[in-house]
Structure formats: C-alpha cells, structure tokens
C-alpha cells in the first residue's frame, strides 16, 4: 500500500521517519502513526488470527472499539494496535494464544 503525497483537501504533516520490528522484519514508519496504520502502509493487513478457527484477522474499526487488531507489543499481549502509536525500536508480533499477564 502507499502513502498519499498529494490530496485536494488535506496536507499530511508526517513526523520523523522511524523504524520498528514486526515479526523480526524491519518496518519503516512515521512518528505519529499508529502501529496498524504503519503496518498497513507496509502492506501488512493480517494482524492476528482468531483463537478457535485460526482465521486471519485485520483492522476493522481503527478507533479501538472492535479488538480485531490485537497484537503483542514489546512483550505485552492484546494491545490495540489501531490506537497505539508506533515508537522507534518497538517490537511488534503476531500473538500466539490469548496472551497472559
């Protein structure tokens, strides 16, 4: 997927370029983006799988309502990646199981 450069109504003021790790891979992002948005821009749409039937799941509401984007972030499970801002050096992983506290 691509990031828009020009838009008839909006100017996108993007933050500093940073990078983070997703399943071991390096992903580029801009400061201010959410984890899910940055992953989407990098072409990653599958964020988790359903616990019973192992079906792929991705972003759905993007405002923290639906829990379809839960991932493991810096070792913490069930993080809503659609409302969590990406940080430099972050480790993001697809979660195995329901997670434990």
């Amino acid at each position: 997927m691509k990031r828009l450069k020009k838009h008839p109504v909006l100017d996108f003021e993007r933050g500093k370029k940073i990078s983070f790790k997703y399943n071991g891979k390096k992903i580029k992002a801009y400061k201010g983006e959410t984890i899910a948005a940055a992953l989407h821009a990098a072409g990653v749409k599958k964020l988790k799988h359903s616990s019973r039937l192992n079906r792929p799941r991705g972003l759905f509401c993007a405002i923290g309502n639906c829990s379809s984007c839960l991932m493991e972030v810096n070792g913490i499970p069930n993080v809503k990646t659609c409302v969590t801002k990406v940080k430099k050096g972050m480790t993001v992983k697809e979660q195995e199981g329901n997670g434990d506290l």
Partner: protein
Amino acid sequence: MMIYADVLVIGGGPAGLSSAITTAEKGAEVVLVERDDTLGGQLVKQTHMFFGSKNEFAGSRGINIAENLRKKVNENDNIKVFLNSTAQGYYDDGIVGISHHERFKKIKAKKVIVATGASEKMLPFPNNDLPGVYGAGAVQTLMNVYGIVPGENVLMIGAGNIGLIVSYQLLQAGVNLVGIVEADSEIGGYLVHASKIRRAGVPIYTEHTIQEAKGKSNVEKAVICELNDNWEEIPGTEKELEVDTICLAVGLKPISDILIQADCEMAYAPQLGGDVAVRDENLQTTIEEIYVAGDSAGIEEATAAMLEGELAGLSALMDLGISKKISKKQRRKTKENLASLRRGPVGRKIREGLKITKEGNDAGKNRYTHIR
C-alpha cells in the same frame, strides 16, 4: 485520588466538546474525559463540507470544526481535559472511575454528560472477517488521518450518507472505487453526493447485496447479487468483482455501555441505531445526575450532536442553578435549532425514534435485567 467537578463530560467528540464549552463558559468546573489522544472524535477525519439550513457550521469542513472546538476547550481554564482516558464505570455513589495512562482515578461530579459516540455495524456474509473488510470509519482514518491508501480496488457497501461521502473521499485520494452496493431500491444519502459519484463513472448497484467475500488471507474478490422485493437474493444474478477492500457503511450503533451499567432505563429505537437511554426533552436520563448527547443518544449527524451537547450542557447548568435565567433562554433557542434540523421528510425517522426515547419500551427495558 478524588477529582471533584460540577460537570463530568465523557467523550471528546462534537457532542462532548459542545457540552464542555457550554457549561464551562457559564462558570461550571468541568472535567472532560476522552479515550483518544486528541479531541474532536470522528470530526478529525471529515474532510467534506457540512451543510444545513441555518446552523452556524454550514459550509465548514469537519476537520476545521474540530479545530475550532478544540481551541475553545483548551483556552477555557474551567475545563480540565483527561486524554488517553477511558471511563470504566458509574457507581452508586455517583463516582466515575477512569483509567488514565494505566492509572485509576476517581471523579465525583454533580452532573455527568455521556457523549460516548457510536460504533460501526457489521453485516453478516461469509468471510466478512477477512483482512480487507473495513468499517467506513477505518477507511477514513487510514486515508484522511494518516494519508494511507486503504486498498487498490474498493467496493463500498451502503449508499447512505456515510457510504457516499467516504466513496467520494476514496475518489479524491485516487483510489479505484469499483462500485457501491445498496440493498434498498433507493439511495439513502443526499443526491448531491450520489451525483458526484455517478459523474465519476462509478456504478451504484441498488437492490443488490454482497453475498460473500473470497480470499485466503486477504480479500481477493467480492460476490454481489440482486435482491427481489422481499430482499431475497435472486439466484443466477451473481457478479464477481475483483477487489482487495470491502468497505462497510451499513450504519452505526450508539455506544451505551456506561448508561446500561449505570442502570439508566433503555429503549430500543431502531431509527436511532439500537438501544438508547430513555430521557426527557432536556436529555436528562432516568438517573437524575446523568444526561446523554450525540450519537450515544441516537445516531444522527455531527450538527445534531453539537446541538445536543449544548442542550445537555444547558440542562445540567439549570439543574445546578448556574446562570439559570440565561441558560433557560438559550436552551429554548437550542431546542428550536434542533427541531428545525429534524424537520421535513429527512428528519422523519429521527422524530419517530425520539418519540420512543420519551416513552420507553419493553424491548429495551427488559434486555438488561439479567445484569442487575
């Protein structure tokens, strides 16, 4: 730690911001709680111009309205804003617990205005959980907040105002919009929006539905088909469309969790999107201290949300005995503005729904008895 206030506003969208500004401007001590890290709610992604007959927001874009409200809130010393904060519950002693940066805080306010907004409705069809099936709001967030293209070939489901507006925004962003599917025989949204889309050559399939999504780990195809007069699928009319994104604009439902938990009487009003709190014409619920405003009171547009926010704020002020006379006068005006917004055939559904919210009904009332 206990935080005291005259008014607690839960939700920093158009309704909540209006409530906070209205009450703080008259001298009330206000606490505003918002779960996101910015104020403005869904206005922050509305790039289109609002229209309305004689309200003050006509001709402005949602993003600019949000900016304007945010400025007013930040400039007012009577408003204490808690961002990244979610209201967790309303307790019998009138205390609301919030989580703020993973810490628990207690707020004791004389009046609580609930303006928690809405969530998107789902549509049942096989593979509707595949990545690439997005709510219309998510598409707007990706595209209008972050400037990220949601997909290459998009199918829109729903030709109400949200479906049409987001469709137009997709075209503005240069995305290939394959078509719009609408189950009804008529387009639900304003024809001004629909004709913009038609002019761009995008087909609007009325009396159609999505039968299924196809794909392995992403949406790869969508199958649509015609519906008969009874909204049943007509065999043999299936069409397969090559899309990687299916955008659902099939309605919103009020977020009422805290109202239900607080034990406000609820009513089922499908015209307003689902279960909503029973309240009087001043937006006071069956719990004296709690008022509702905006989409959490029933799905409408942002202009109505702002007016409701004002109305709930003025009612809270009057009940608190703050600027009673001026508030009363202003409240009459706000009610007139709301009524004029809901006039005519466009507002008929809303008016029917509002009638239910005054009278209540068993469907809403009995649904939550088990949690008491």
